[in-house]
């Protein structure tokens, strides 16, 4: 309902935007009728709900052959692929960095890791993306860039890195402080005293207990990753939900905007549900409680 209300107060006329200013009055009236703009707000809301229940999320006028769901089905996997690649890259960088910083607290390594994470927190996607393109695509030619098709081999590396660096910064700080809390616990000393190898002590006893706050942050930050993906898609000229949504907003294409926002919000809520389930898998005590 919030999505519907927000979008319907947009003052621009969607018919103007879709047909251009030179369209005839007859064409306009037809388009208006097709989009349901001649109906009252309550009826339009009914159509919106109808679109949700029949799974189409509305149809694209004037032909009505294309459904919003089919547009989203084409764009969304690309965005999800980017978002998950970005998150994976962030975790792969953040966990070793955070653990190393916690183990060598106060050392040059700790200062370097935390300095790197502060830089990651401060550099916006809109700066990091173009810099990566200039260095690795234009100057060195090592990786594909915006001019290559998104299916090219390695095309995901630069966008995922640009997207993941910000999350990496947040996660490595969280990993460090969470590991620092855990390292002082009695069970860590017991594990060491039992003669376990340092790797087993740190990974099995330390990291597993430190993971809960890290997983929480991953869930909370997933919204940020989806928002970041919208920006990264623009910077790397990748097709996806960001491109679909921004074009739809510019055209005032109501069904597409509603569909995109709804789809992203539902995914966000679902990921947070998965995070809750993951708590139980990582820490059986939470499942029991």
């Amino acid at each position: 309902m919030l999505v519907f209300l927000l979008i319907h107060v947009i003052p621009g006329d969607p018919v103007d935007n879709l047909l251009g200013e030179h369209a005839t009055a007859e064409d306009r009236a037809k388009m208006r009728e097709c989009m349901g703009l001649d109906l009252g707000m309550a009826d339009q809301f009914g159509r919106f709900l109808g679109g949700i229940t029949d799974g189409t999320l509305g149809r694209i006028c004037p032909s009505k052959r294309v459904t919003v769901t089919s547009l989203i089905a084409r764009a969304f996997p690309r965005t999800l692929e980017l978002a998950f690649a970005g998150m994976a890259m962030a975790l792969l960088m953040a966990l070793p960095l955070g653990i190393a910083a916690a183990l060598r607290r106060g050392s040059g390594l700790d200062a370097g890791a935390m300095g790197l994470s502060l830089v990651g927190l401060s550099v916006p996607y809109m700066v990091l993306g173009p810099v990566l393109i200039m260095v690795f695509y234009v100057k060195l030619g090592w990786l594909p860039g915006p001019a290559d098709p998104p299916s090219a081999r390695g095309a995901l590396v630069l966008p995922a890195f640009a997207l993941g660096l910000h999350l990496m910064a947040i996660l490595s700080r969280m990993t460090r402080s969470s590991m620092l809390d855990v390292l002082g616990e009695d069970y860590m000393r017991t594990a060491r005293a039992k003669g376990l190898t340092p790797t087993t002590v740190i990974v099995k006893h330390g990291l597993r207990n430190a993971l809960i706050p890290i997983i929480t942050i991953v869930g909370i930050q997933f919204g940020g990753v989806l928002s970041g993906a919208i920006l990264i898609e623009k910077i790397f000229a990748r097709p996806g939900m960001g491109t679909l949504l921004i074009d739809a907003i510019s055209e005032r294409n109501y069904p597409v905007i509603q569909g995109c926002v709804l789809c992203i919000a539902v995914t966000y809520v679902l990921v947070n549900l998965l995070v809750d389930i993951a708590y139980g898998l990582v820490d059986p005590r939470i499942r029991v409680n």
Partner: protein
Amino acid sequence: MAARSRSPFMQAVRGMSVSGWIGFSILILFTLLALLGPLLAPYSPTAQDLDGAFQAPSAAHWLGTDEQGTDLLSMLLHGARIAAIISGSVIAINVVVGVSLGVIAGALGGWVEELIMRVIDVLLAFPGLLLNLAIVAVVKKPGVGHLVFALCINGWVGYARMARGQVLALRNREFVEAARSIGVSRLGIMRRHLLPNITSPIIVQATLGFANVILIESALSFLGFGAQMPYSWGALLDQGQTYLWLSTRYVLAPGIAIAVVVLGFNLLGDGLRDRLDPKRQNS
């Protein structure tokens, strides 16, 4: 007495680490540039000189020029003021609205708390930028006011949650019970006993919040939905990206400006948190 009358913010700043002080210095510089920038700018941020497009840095144009021959430094200095006005207003509104609602929810409880928390849940169901984007898109040509409104619609939520959490921890403490037992009104308890005890985390969160607002504002401008001013930092980044093949300087100048200011706020926020959070001081 003099030390006691100093604000908690200044007291915390005095005892900060070196990195905190670096952040504080960056912010003083940013504030000065926002105040004086338009006076210091050598040219108008809209003056065009089509023959002098994409000039390299020189004595006349320290950072060079853009595709229309406009001086980049002048645009950056004018943009600093826009960034400061938007982030300052957004944080001020978010803190006042968020903390008030959070304290009210925590102190009153019952249906009032339930209502406020459900509104927060609804707003949290949307990724931040998406909601901001949907709201700015409501207006055909958004100005600074529209942008501030869009950034405030969900920006207060974090402050409200934090303030409520703090109040829940405090509301049954002895000094609150004592105030209640001598007949201090609910409003009096909130204003004189609860609020002063939760200022430290609010200061830290607001400082870190500035960094976030600057990032979101520039992201919206970059996507073409910001305040319609060609020299806002995000709009400059957007233009710079278009001409990336011709001049990397065009992206780097506003990009570095945003990164340095955001870094400054993050350093100051971290420094203040280390000073103000007793748990961190001990560890």
